[in-house]
């Protein structure tokens, strides 16, 4: 019993604890309002249900947020991800009209890598502040995407390509497998090689890291590239899911969600320690919140307020100061009760 308690206590100190609690609360609200919410049935040979939907919908955000997490861990930020989503969607949609899907995908990913390299070069090479460096690509990127699509929405009629975003494998959405693969690869890269240590070290203190022999600039460059690739993959999933490339709106404001997911997951905006699990939980939380809002029939003009309140509450619950304030008040109450 005691052991279980300490185990629980230990877990509640983990960064992933609070986002998971938040998800649980959101899902519970759903369950109360729509009792069938947790039902998962098999339809047309694949799993089907709200939970699966959330999982499926969250994949692009999860993938992007993971890339963003690494960038934030180095003390940077990448606000160009929304535009990179648009670019990769546009390129893929244009290319598959004339070439085989795998080749188109490869070229798209190369383009995403180039975007990442561009950001990385501006930040680590020229030394421009990350937010401004990526602001440039944020502006230019959407322009480039529109240039590619000529400002029109390109509809994709390619079953192979649309499998990425809408297909099912072993009863689960294929995109979930992609996300799982990305999570695994990044997890392997950061926790089974020294990459993660280096990223955290550079984010924690880049001068010390340099003195210790870490090539800080190179690490910073690399995380922007990784972020580029992740975003490129997310762009592919998004465009394939709606079977079209929308240069104007694809990924619009997604950078904010990605940053939010990262921070809710426990990674600090000032760099240093990062938590991939936390980020995934954060992204899932954001998506379940969004889906909940849609299915609960919240009037669209109130969505923002609801979102704001939830975000602030979640972050308050993560704040030690707030919790100690609460427990302080609770203690006082108790004392008063005892006195009375």
């Amino acid at each position, binding site marked *: 019993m005691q052991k279980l308690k300490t185990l629980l206590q230990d877990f509640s100190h983990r960064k992933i604890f609070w986002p998971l609690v938040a998800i649980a609360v959101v899902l519970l609200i759903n369950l109360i309002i729509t009792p069938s919410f947790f039902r998962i049935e098999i339809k047309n040979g694949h799993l089907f249900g709200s939970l699966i939907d959330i999982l499926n919908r969250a994949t692009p955000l999860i993938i992007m947020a993971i890339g963003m997490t690494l960038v934030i861990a180095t003390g940077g930020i990448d606000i160009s991800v929304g535009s990179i989503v648009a670019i990769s969607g546009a390129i893929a949609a244009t290319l598959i009209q004339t070439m085989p899907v795998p080749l188109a995908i490869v070229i798209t990913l190369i383009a995403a890598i180039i975007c990442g390299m561009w950001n990385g070069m501006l930040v680590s090479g020229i030394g421009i502040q990350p937010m401004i460096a990526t602001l440039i690509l944020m502006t230019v990127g959407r322009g480039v995407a529109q240039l590619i699509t000529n400002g029109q929405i390109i509809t994709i009629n390619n079953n192979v390509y649309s499998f990425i975003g809408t297909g099912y494998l072993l009863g689960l959405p294929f995109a979930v497998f992609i996300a799982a693969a990305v999570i695994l690869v990044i997890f392997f890269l950061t926790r*089974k090689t*020294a990459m993660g240590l280096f990223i955290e*070290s550079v984010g*924690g203190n880049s*001068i*010390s890291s340099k*003195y*210790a022999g*870490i*090539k800080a600039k190179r690490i910073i460059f690399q995380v922007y590239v990784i972020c580029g690739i992740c975003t490129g993959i997310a762009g592919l999933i998004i465009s394939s899911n709606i079977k079209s490339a929308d240069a104007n709106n694809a990924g619009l404001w997604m950078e904010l969600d990605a940053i939010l997911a990262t921070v809710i997951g426990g990674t600090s905006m000032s760099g240093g320690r990062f938590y991939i699990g936390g980020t995934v939980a954060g992204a899932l939380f954001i998506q379940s919140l969004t889906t909940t809002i849609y299915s609960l029939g919240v009037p669209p003009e109130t969505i923002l307020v609801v979102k704001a309140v939830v975000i602030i509450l979640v972050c308050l619950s993560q704040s030690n100061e707030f919790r100690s304030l609460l427990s302080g008040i609770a203690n006082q109450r108790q004392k008063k009760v005892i006195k009375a």
Partner: protein
Amino acid sequence: MAEKDIILQMKGISKYFPGVKALSNVDFTLKKGEIHALMGENGAGKSTLIKVLTGVHKLDDGEIYLHGKKITPKSPLDAQKSGISTVYQEVNLCPNLTVAENIFIGRQPKKNGNIDWNTMNEKAQKAMERLNIYIDVKQLLSSYSVAIQQMVAIARAVDISSGVLILDEPTSSLDNNEVKELFKIMNKLKEEGMGIIFVTHFLDQVYEVSDRITILRNGTLIGEYKVEELPRLELVSKMIGKELEVLEHMPKERKQKDEEDENYIIYAKGLGKKGSIEPFDLKIKKGEVIGLAGLLGSGRSETAKLLFGIDKSDEGVLYIDNKMFTSMYPKKAIDQGLAFCPEERKVEGIVGELTIRENIILAMQASKGIFKYIPMKKQQEIAQKYIELLNIVTPSMEQRIDKLSGGNQQKVILARWLSTEPKVLILDEPTRGIDVGSKTEIQKLILSLAAEGMTIIFISSELEEVVRCCDRVIVLRDRLQIGELTGDDLQESMIMKTIAEGGQ
């Protein structure tokens, strides 16, 4: 004991950090017009006591009385308002402000309600001159070395102080002359009736200025003594909790210059950087312990940084093991078997957010590259080995390094470089902030490493230490090599003499 003489009284102070009992039931009294030394090993709880007193940490138990009145400082601001001014162990100033501002921030002189910059600069200039430092106070703090920054912090505290002055290892990065200036000021303040709490690891300094000594060990109070009544050896054994056997002079066999052997492990030829260090030649043989001595800003650190490739040289070449290099950067230097333990621990050394284990293996991992990740078990072994070897006080190796005491942080950085098993180890002020016991341990370690064939470049402001460890000492002044001392010449007095005369 006359009650009215007591300025500050702390009773039954306890402070717990997760997994650490930093202070338990400690009493402390400070009298009017005394300098009170607070002594103890690394991690004994000295800084914590000070931080509790000044409201940085919330105390878990105990009471504080100032002038007989109970106080509960909630922040350094509170403490400052009630007349306690503090120089904390790490330099805690703002690098982006000028020296003058750092001294006066929060209490700037005003004219018609506006900050009067001219008066402020003048006053700051005077405050620094009082410490015998002549610098341009209108420059940013970051353009000065740690030592100067330390003096700025002292100048600030001295200027504020109105009852209690606390100095937590103020002398660790100062040289003798500056220490002398500081002591002059301290004595003057003492005569004015101020109470001064003084933390240091230099026994000489304790005996030079202090009136009383309070000793902490492992967060508990060992006792309070008059200086006259506590001989050195007893002080040390009370601090470390056992009889001291190591402190006597270590016999040192100096390696003699072997003129025939032309095989240098380090050979710098005309290496220099404009505006930073004049071109110099440096020849070091395998297994030598070579010291760099000089005053503040004489270019010792700069020489080391140039060798290690942190600063890029713009002329000359460097041979390491007879391999020629015209450009250098840290990774390359590490690959060539160099290691550099930098002087500014907080800025250049620790990565505060990482654990002790990670901080230790950082350099080793960097040289191995990303893909040869050291297995966790191996990491733990290495960390454990050095925690034991260097006697690092910590609840676990997974503790964040910035939760360690200053001296223990320094040991971790030392461990980082020792673990790379370098051929040439450059140590810039490695014993800064390290307690007497450990200091001797480290000196012994250096000597034994040298005996095993490691080459060591040793930079220290403590000439005694330099003399004790080095085979050869190079004296610098104004970014120029002005002399070299070996054999019997290698004595503190000779170094001083060279510095004073050499350049002329």
